[in-house]
């Protein structure tokens, strides 16, 4: 059962990374990015293309692909999302939905719906003895890296000047502006960073999961539920909820397989009944 729990945490790592990106983007821009799953998918494909067409190995892809996609995301924000920002958030929501559909379909046309092969990096293909059980090395790596990444983001947000500005801009934009800080210039980089996180999760997923155009669509709705559970404004909440949901899902799969897919939504309904703003969310979510 311990192994299952570990499994759950690994699955939760992906939820956490994606939820983190979503939360950061929402916090800064007020945009619910439905294209997040598509960028995750592009990250995985990026790794595949890097290997297939350019011979770049996993580590190069891990560094390069999130960077490239982050820039792409920043461009998207600059050109389009910014224009819709003053309006009802509904429009950005739908815009990102359209982007997701297009990206998915483009990849489908180019690569078909069947999965592309992507091998695990040779340095990580063995198993690791964790004392109580042995576990595939790659999964341990994923868990470690995502925990580190989430931790690093948390540190940046709480300990650095940049992070302070971002948090202030998120919670009190007018006041921040009044204090002479140019909030606007941080919007684009933060969006790009959120997208880069999604792509990063995608590259991590490539050796473990099927690389196909639909991989993001299936995942994104669960991630939404995770973010609602954690609290939409809260970075910490999203990450914590991500790991928690992963854990609960895996254990649920073991004991109550019939409920496995609905478990996340039942949790969400329960959280909403008790705390409509999510576990760590702020009151603005309510009403």
């Amino acid at each position, binding site marked *: 059962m311990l192994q299952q729990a570990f499994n759950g945490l690994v699955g939760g790592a992906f939820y956490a990374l994606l939820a983190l990106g979503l939360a950061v983007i929402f916090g800064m821009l007020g945009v619910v990015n439905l294209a997040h799953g598509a960028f995750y998918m592009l990250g995985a494909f990026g790794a595949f293309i890097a290997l297939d067409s350019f011979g770049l190995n996993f580590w190069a892809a891990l560094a390069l692909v999130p960077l490239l996609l982050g820039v792409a995301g920043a461009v998207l924000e600059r050109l389009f999302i910014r224009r819709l920002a003053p309006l009802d958030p509904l429009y950005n929501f*739908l815009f990102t939905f359209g982007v997701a559909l297009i990206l998915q379909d483009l990849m489908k*046309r180019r690569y078909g719906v069947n999965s592309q092969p992507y091998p695990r990096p040779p340095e990580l293909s063995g198993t690791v003895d964790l004392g109580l059980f042995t576990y595939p090395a790659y999964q341990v790596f994923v868990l470690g890296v995502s925990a580190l990444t989430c931790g690093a983001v948390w540190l940046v947000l709480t300990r650095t000047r940049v992070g302070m500005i971002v948090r202030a801009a998120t919670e009190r934009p007018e006041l921040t502006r009044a204090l002479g800080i140019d909030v606007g210039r941080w919007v684009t980089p933060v969006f790009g960073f959120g997208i880069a996180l999604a792509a990063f999760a995608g590259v991590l997923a490539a050796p473990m999961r099927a690389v196909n155009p639909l991989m993001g669509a299936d995942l994104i709705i669960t991630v939404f539920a995770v973010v609602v559970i954690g609290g939409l404004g809260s970075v910490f909440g999203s990450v914590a909820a991500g790991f928690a949901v992963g854990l609960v899902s895996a254990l649920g799969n073991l004991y109550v397989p019939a409920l496995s897919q609905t478990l996340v939504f039942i949790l969400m309904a329960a959280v909403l009944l008790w705390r409509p703003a999510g576990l760590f969310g702020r009151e603005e979510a309510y009403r």
Partner: protein
Amino acid sequence: MILTRLARSGRAGVALLAAGLFAALVLPWLIYPPVALDIACWALFAAALDLLLGFTGLLSFGHAAFWGGSAYCTGLIALRLGLPFPVAVLGGTAFAALLALPIGYLSVRLTGIYFAMVTLAFAQMVYFVANQWRDVTGGENGLQGIPRELFGLDLSDPFFFYYAALPLVLAGLFAAWRIVHSPFGRVLVSIRDNPARARALGYPVERYRLLAFVLSGALSGTAGGVFAIGHGFAALDGLYWTTSGQVVMMVILGGIGTLWGGAIGAAIVVQLQDFLATAGFDGSGIVTGTLFIVIVLLFRRGIWGTARHLLAARRTAAPPETAEPKPRSRVDAPT
């Protein structure tokens, strides 16, 4: 009373109404009848959603739960009980309303984008439940062989069925219109525009929203029920979030807050999909996605909304009551 309202909306209103009815009656002559029926069903679905989106200001991304849920319920009533199909559709409508009650209750505590996400998640839950409850819904296989019973009449030709089903669709559309043009409808609009003020005036905002949600869900159920009988089939796809997304797109394409815009949006989207499928074009997602983006960026008023806006501008009278995209500062004071 209806006639005075018609008279008030002027000759233009009457003319448009007549044109709409004529179009509805003549449609199966111009298009492959099953496609005509699809357009009618989606038009009602879009109007139902617009009731919630345009007039109450709530974007539900989970209305597929009511469309699809009613499809199954209607199908089961028709299949297992052999009742005439209008009765089955009414049963489906009631089921959709009942389903909307708990979902709405939990969801109307939130607004804006949170409401959208939560309704999306609940609809997915309904999808998974339907998937699991195989004995009743048929699971993957769907509910097959739904009959069209109406006092022994032979309705197997989709051309005749269209006319048999049209009264139900028209009744639904009329109900939507009636709800909007009523004191209740006016309160909804005021809640949409300024919930704080409505609350200050003593209106129980959440209860109004809930009622609007349930009515919207019920009418979506009517549309889904007719759809199921028309196809002889109820499937999981009707509960999937892409169905919710599609009806939202139709409403926006037609014009939010116009009620009839959705019908135009439905006609365009259904025809477009039919055309793409027949032409063997592979990228329907690209087309749909691009359509979404173009509408959102450039065409937010939608077709009907733009037309109304242009007419009003020309008349230089007070601009019409549309749910225009309001400029809004990104972080609102809690409203």
